């Protein structure tokens, strides 16, 4: 379950090391996020992350109370809109600059912890001669 760490490592590598590739990929990512349509339901990208895993559960529990409340509000509002086959009024669409990755840092932290535990659980002791 080191998927988040790996994909974020890859994204960091692309944006920091390979300028040419970043110029191609970043606008494409923005375009895909836009046509995905979740912003029209008032959701943020991090609201879409599947929460049925121990790591994400841990991350969600570590959110500050306000962030946690807001997340639940956005998801419930999106459910309601989906049931009514409606979108938010155009002026209430989530703006790209408000699409903050509020959960990702917590997921990465929880995943790094799990990885470290796995490392120590399978570590072998080498005695110096």
């Amino acid at each position, binding site marked *: 379950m080191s998927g988040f760490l790996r994909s974020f490592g890859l994204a960091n590598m692309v944006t920091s090391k390979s300028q040419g590739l970043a110029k191609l990929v970043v606008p494409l990512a923005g375009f895909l996020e836009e046509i995905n349509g979740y912003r029209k339901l008032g959701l943020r990208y991090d609201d879409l992350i599947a929460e049925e895993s121990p790591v994400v559960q841990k991350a969600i*529990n570590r959110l500050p109370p306000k962030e946690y409340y807001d997340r639940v509000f956005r998801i419930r509002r999106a459910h309601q809109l989906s049931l009514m086959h409606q979108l938010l009024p155009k002026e209430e669409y989530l703006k790209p600059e408000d699409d903050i990755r509020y959960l990702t840092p917590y997921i990465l932290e929880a995943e790094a912890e799990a990885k*470290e535990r796995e490392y120590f659980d399978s570590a072998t002791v080498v005695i110096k001669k």
Partner: protein
Amino acid sequence: MLAHRRATSSFLHTARRTLATVADSGFASSTVEGVKLATKEVDTPISTLSFVVKAGSRYSTTPGVAHALERYAFQNTKTRSALRITRESEFLGASFSPSLSRDAIVLTAEFLKDDLAYFFEVLSDVFARPHLARHELAEVVGTLLKLDSTAAAADPSVAVTEALHLAAYRRGLGLPLYAQPSDSISATSVSDYKDIVYTKANLAIVGSGISLDKLSPLVADFLEDAPAGTDVPLPSSPFYAGDVRVPSTAGNAVALGYATSSSAPEFAVLAALLGGTPSIKWSYGSSLLATATQGKAVASLTPYAGSSLFKIIASAGSAEDTSAAAAAAASVLKSVASKPVSSDDLKKAIAQAKFAAVSPLEGKPGLTATGVSLLTTGAVPDTAAILSALDSVTAEKVKSAAEAVVSKVAVAAVGKVAELPYADELL
């Protein structure tokens, strides 16, 4: 007969022993980069290293915050995670024991002599670079705080000691040692408290089985980025008399207390004279309280920086028996206040007071006591001065100490408070 005579002569020999044979506490001290160091070189395979920080509950900016900071010890730091600290110390063979008193938070590591550099680094990580993450308060630290305060409330003698501190000192030393459920502790308040107290000016590093030459360069290596800070002033701790009563289902206990200035050897002798703590298992001993209450009341003197608390704790199961034990203890105290004790009793009490004063300066508690002394007086405890001060106590001084307690006393009662006595009913 012969055996008896031999025992008597060896007793006399011990009683005649003079101060010259008593060694000092054995600590060598110095100051490196604003950090006070003291070490005792003992030739054992195990070394003990304590970071004594002037951050005990009496310095708390908000109630309970010192307890939370103590329980945050050995959690995640910026350089090492809690898991890494645990597993690496298991690989090397060691034990960590953070502890909290009213005077200090103490971070202690015991380890094999060769691993000094590693454990110094871990302790300085915990001291200078703790993470104090908000989620740790919810997941780990908060549970530990609840555990500690519940365990303390479940023991009537601990609960009554806490209540007695409140009655005697109100604030400062009167603040509860453990975080209470009513305290609002957040990661921010703990972090703010850490910024004030976890600084080089408030730190004393005390070790046993470590040489000062080896310790000094480590301070420059690992504590360079620790904030220098300012010396936290010692809050004044005046003595108030009065009653504090805590209804509880844990059991019944009554405590009488009197706070005195820290160098009051006559109170140490008074506590030893009243006694109550057996020195041998399965007996009450022959002290005044032991004979009067059959071991149900115990007198002691707890030293703090700037003040000492003389206390008698009576606890005997039911509220009726506890009240009777407290009344018996009070009448013993009044009889000591009414006439000077015999010279034999005084000699015995002085010898016991000497032991009680010096034995906490040994071993692991000794590191804490030495650190607190370094932080508050600037010097390691002077064993010879402590012992000679106790030697100079006279029967008349003990009598006036007892008179002082009788005239002004703080009383705490825990349990079925409706049945337990008040201060003016006891004395």
